[in-house]
């Protein structure tokens, strides 16, 4: 009999409370996906290329797992709370009939266990499927056709998923059933709305909103100006201000809501009732609303920032060179490289092969400061003060021993990039800086100085700087960069370096080598052939995979967190609304007796749902505009901040997409509320 009751109850729970059951499934899927990350195709591929970075990310997975555990606990807690609250009356009846509390506890535990096992039975296969799908889609998106797809199923991940899920489920259950069992039968049997709380004069709430807004404004100012990112203490202060601001704002929100009750036309159906209901929730649940709003904000920021970072790494630094062959190290000079390539019939697969030489000034009489550019520094100092100017001055101050680059080699590079060649006289030089060390505004500053054709001293001989700042990568390896170098005519280069220089032999794959296949596949194929030929080289593939790693890991993690945050916030809001609606069932019954029809009640509760979801969401949306901006200041490399407006628009699009998700959630809660109101109408009729 007892077991029959248990199985019937758990079946009814699943049927009646889809919201609860789907939240269980979501948490299982979330656990599994983060845990099986290391089995994803992209990660397996990247592990071959960037094992260091990938391993670092993998060591972070337990942290993410614990974080997910912590966050999903709240989801399970609220969903279970709703589940138990709606059965209060039933528990009261069991106890009235003489069921021992311990037996009630055992019954609930058994029901819970039954449902958990079922959720795992459905959730785990779904999670495996979804993770497989993500694996395939990402692999396809980044164009890894070269390695065969491997199934991402991981027994370990499945095991940990089950453990984590059962753990938080049990913990939530213990807390909730403890709360329920302590209540008197009488309170279990009746649904009572929470009633009134002691109210302070409106002045306090108004001030609270004001102080809250000020705190938020300060927090965002600190974050956007970059001050917060200077240290732990500043960041702590910013976070504290942000949290305080949000909580104060929501605490004070009852003031404007109270104002809404009195203001405007009251003829709209049930307007006063709606606002009083809203006010009650805001008064009783301002803390929860604030937390939900913060979660939505976190989701929006994660999403916005993740997508922007993805875009940034996807499009950074123009890609010109495909291969750089090393010289001296193995004793092979460009001629031998060319011969080896020709021997293996690989030279035809390159559309261009050329050398770029770089070297230090090596003249016989070597002074302490072979290079001086006082006129440039003086001109820079005259520019209006800015952070970029300080950085530029600081960087250039120590440049007294620069690299030299051959003009011929650099011009080949320019030609390959489809840019006009540089033309230098024998007493002219061009400035080279790597993109890593400059940005739009610094380059602009230096260009304005270069326009004046400033005079410099190179080993005590006068030279004139001309043209604009050059930034094309000299070699494929992005970890080889030059902060500052001078491009000089070849004879000047030969004169100053005295034969002490490094040759980088660069190659660009021809179009027919990359045709009919993805770039990744073309590189992998070429690498294999070059390995066979015994050449040592650096290919763009490494850079690409490094880039890919950043793209995949940052977007994966941020989007994952964003979805988790969003689901939790929405579930909590939805469940809270439905719970308070149930507690106010008596009010709805009174309205029905006063002649309210079902459509009128639905309209009223729909309005309340709009407000209930709308307040935290709109608050989070407004904040996210600043929040995403602040994150960009903190996490994006300096040189991308010039195209910040473009990044912001990307994020705005994402935020819009999230609004759509929010809308779907609201629609689901509305349907659930409509159904509940219908049950209030029906039984009275059939009495």
């Amino acid at each position, binding site marked *: 009999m007892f077991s029959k009751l248990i199985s019937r109850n758990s079946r009814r729970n699943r049927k009646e409370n889809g919201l609860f059951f789907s939240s269980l499934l979501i948490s299982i899927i979330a656990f599994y996906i983060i845990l099986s990350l290391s089995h994803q195709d992209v990660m397996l591929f990247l592990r071959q290329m960037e094992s260091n970075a990938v391993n670092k990310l993998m060591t972070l997975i337990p942290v993410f797992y614990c974080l997910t555990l912590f966050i999903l606990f709240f989801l399970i807690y609220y969903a279970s709370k709703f589940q138990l609250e709606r059965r209060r009356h039933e528990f009261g009846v069991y106890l009235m009939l003489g069921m021992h509390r311990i037996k009630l506890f055992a019954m609930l535990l058994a029901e819970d266990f039954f449902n958990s096992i079922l959720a795992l039975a459905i959730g785990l296969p779904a999670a495996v499927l979804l993770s497989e799908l993500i694996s395939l889609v990402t692999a396809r998106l980044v164009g890894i056709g070269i390695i065969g797809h491997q199934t991402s199923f991981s027994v370990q991940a499945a095991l940990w998923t089950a453990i984590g899920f059962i753990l938080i489920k049990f913990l939530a259950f213990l807390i909730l059933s403890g709360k329920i069992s302590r209540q008197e039968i009488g309170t279990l049997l009746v649904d009572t709305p929470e*009633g009134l709380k002691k109210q302070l004069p409106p002045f306090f709430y108004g001030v609270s909103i004001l102080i809250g807004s000020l705190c938020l404004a300060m927090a965002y100012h600190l974050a956007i100006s970059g001050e917060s990112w200077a240290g732990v203490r500043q960041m702590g202060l910013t976070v504290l201000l942000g949290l305080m601001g949000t909580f104060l704002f929501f605490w004070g929100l009852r003031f404007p809501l109270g104002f809404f009750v009195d203001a405007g036309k009251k*003829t709209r159906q*049930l307007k*006063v*009732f709606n606002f*009083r209901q809203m006010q009650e929730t805001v008064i009783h649940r301002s803390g929860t609303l604030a937390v939900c709003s913060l979660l939505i904000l976190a989701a929006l920021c994660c999403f916005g920032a993740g997508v922007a970072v993805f875009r940034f790494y996807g499009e950074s630094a123009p890609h010109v060179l495909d291969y750089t062959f090393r010289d001296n190290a193995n004793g092979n000079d460009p001629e031998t490289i060319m011969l080896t390539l020709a021997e293996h019939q690989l030279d035809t697969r390159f559309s261009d092969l050329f050398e770029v030489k770089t070297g230090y000034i090596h003249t016989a009489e070597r002074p302490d400061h072979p290079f001086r550019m006082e006129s440039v520094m003086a001109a820079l100092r005259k520019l209006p003060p800015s952070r970029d100017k300080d950085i530029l001055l600081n960087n250039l101050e120590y440049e007294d021993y620069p690299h030299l680059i051959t003009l011929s080699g650099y011009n080949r590079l320019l030609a390959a990039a489809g840019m006009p060649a540089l033309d230098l006289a024998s007493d002219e030089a061009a400035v080279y800086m790597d993109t890593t060390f400059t940005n739009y505004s610094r380059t602009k500053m230096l260009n304005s100085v270069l326009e004046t054709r400033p005079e410099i001293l190179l080993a005590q001989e006068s030279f004139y700087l001309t043209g604009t700042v050059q930034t094309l990568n000299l070699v494929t390896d992005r970890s080889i960069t030059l902060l500052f170098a001078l491009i000089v005519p070849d004879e000047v280069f030969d004169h100053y370096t005295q034969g002490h220089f490094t040759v980088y032999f660069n190659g660009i794959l021809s179009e027919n080598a990359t045709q009919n296949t993805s770039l990744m596949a073309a590189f992998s194929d070429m690498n294999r052939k070059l390995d066979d030929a015994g050449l040592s080289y650096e290919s763009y593939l490494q850079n690409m995979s490094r880039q890919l790693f950043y793209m995949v890991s940052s977007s994966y993690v941020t989007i994952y967190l964003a979805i988790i945050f969003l689901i939790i916030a929405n579930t909590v809001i939805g469940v809270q609304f439905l719970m308070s609606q149930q507690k106010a069932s008596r009010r709805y019954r009174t309205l029905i*007796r006063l*002649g309210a029809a079902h459509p009128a009640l639905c309209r009223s509760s729909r309005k309340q749902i709009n407000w209930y979801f709308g307040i935290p969401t709109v608050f989070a949306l407004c904040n996210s505009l600043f929040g995403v901006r602040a994150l960009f200041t903190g996490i994006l490399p300096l040189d991308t901040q010039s195209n910040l407006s473009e990044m912001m628009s990307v994020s705005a699009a994402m935020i819009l997409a999230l609004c759509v998700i929010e809308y779907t959630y609201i629609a689901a809660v509305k349907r659930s509320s409509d159904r509940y109101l219908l049950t209030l109408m029906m039984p009275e009729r059939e009495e």
Partner: protein
Amino acid sequence: MEPILQIESLKKYYGKTKNQTKALNGITFQVMPGEFLGIMGSSGSGKSTLLNCIATVIRPDGGNITMNGRQVQSLKGTALADYRGKEIGYLFQNFELLDNLTGRENIMLPLSLHGVPEAESGKRLDKLASYLEVKDVLPKFPAQMSGGQRQRIAAARALILNPSLILADEPTGALDSKNAKALMEKLAGLNQDEKATILMVTHDSNAASYCRRILFIQDGVIFHELRRNIPDETQQEFYTRILKATAQLGGGSANVL
């Protein structure tokens, strides 16, 4: 004069054929404009079922309910909602005030439900509030009011749309004797001065003595009827007659069956 409410052989049965309870077994009566009609009976006599049928909370199995010439059972949708809100005013035993609305907002609730402009009823609210002596509790929430004040607010809510008929379901049931007396005096006053038509279901002979006519129901049929002889009969004398009738009916405290 046309009756406001006409009940013709009203039937309501609960349960299956074998084990049927006939809560209403063909009741017929009329309520005339300006009447204060009481319905008395023991528990399970069918008086609440009768009230619920009139209030369209439950659907009768047979017979007719006609309010101002319209058949109530055939009403649907907006017409039904309008009937509940405008034609009848309902006074509940446990007040059924919305605890998160102030007194004023509770009284205004029917206006908001039925889309009546507030300005029109503002004057009526003032008049009702001062008559029912609840003016100073209008801005308070129900939790801050006494039981009597709550019921008087509920009365004002039932009256605000000037309904043709006020249905009162044991209105003194949750009140102490002092507050019960005050409420009944106000209801009787409304009946005399405003010509409000009231149909009250009660257990309480004291409250019933404010009525002009009383129908006694037992086992779903009208069993007896008492009329107060105005102005010859005092309320006290009428009360004694009610007590006698209840004693005979076996529903009151003096069960002599």
